[in-house]
């Protein structure tokens, strides 16, 4: 599991347990991330 996948899994899990209403939008991919 990549680090990005882990962040996404955490956000989705918070929704599942009812702590947050909706998962936040994915972070925009920056040029730096692509390098």
């Amino acid at each position, binding site marked *: 599991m990549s680090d990005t996948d882990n962040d996404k899994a*955490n956000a989705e899990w918070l929704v599942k347990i009812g702590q947050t209403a909706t998962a936040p939008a994915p972070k925009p991919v920056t040029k730096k991330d692509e390098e």
Partner: protein
Amino acid sequence: MAQGIVNKVGFKVGATDPASIDLSAYVTSFTLTRSVDSIETTAMGDTGHRYVAGLQNNSITVELINDDAASAVLQSMNTLFATNAYFKCALDKSSVGSAANPFYSGLILVDTITPINGDVASLGIQSLTFQVSGAITVATTGTF
């Protein structure tokens, strides 16, 4: 940094990602423990116990000066109590991320706080241990 004392640790918490409440200035002691379950796979023919890594089981132990100002320790922990809070920590908050200074982040269950703790002659502190919920993200780029 090669060898050195541990006086630059960064520690942030918050209700949203990324953690934004910087409690570093109140940290007097910090331990990040990364661990995985060891799953035994020993079978016939083996002459010693064999194991593979299972689920991550990480924790953070931190001692904080119990400052009661807004966005400091007392009020932040009171707000985050009984929730899964985002955290971010680093060995050196002032240096950029690298293999020598990774940034660790994820969720902790804030299941215990000590909003009142101390004696008449001592500084009020919170000495806390949190289980990490899920895995830890490790970043070797960016800034704290």
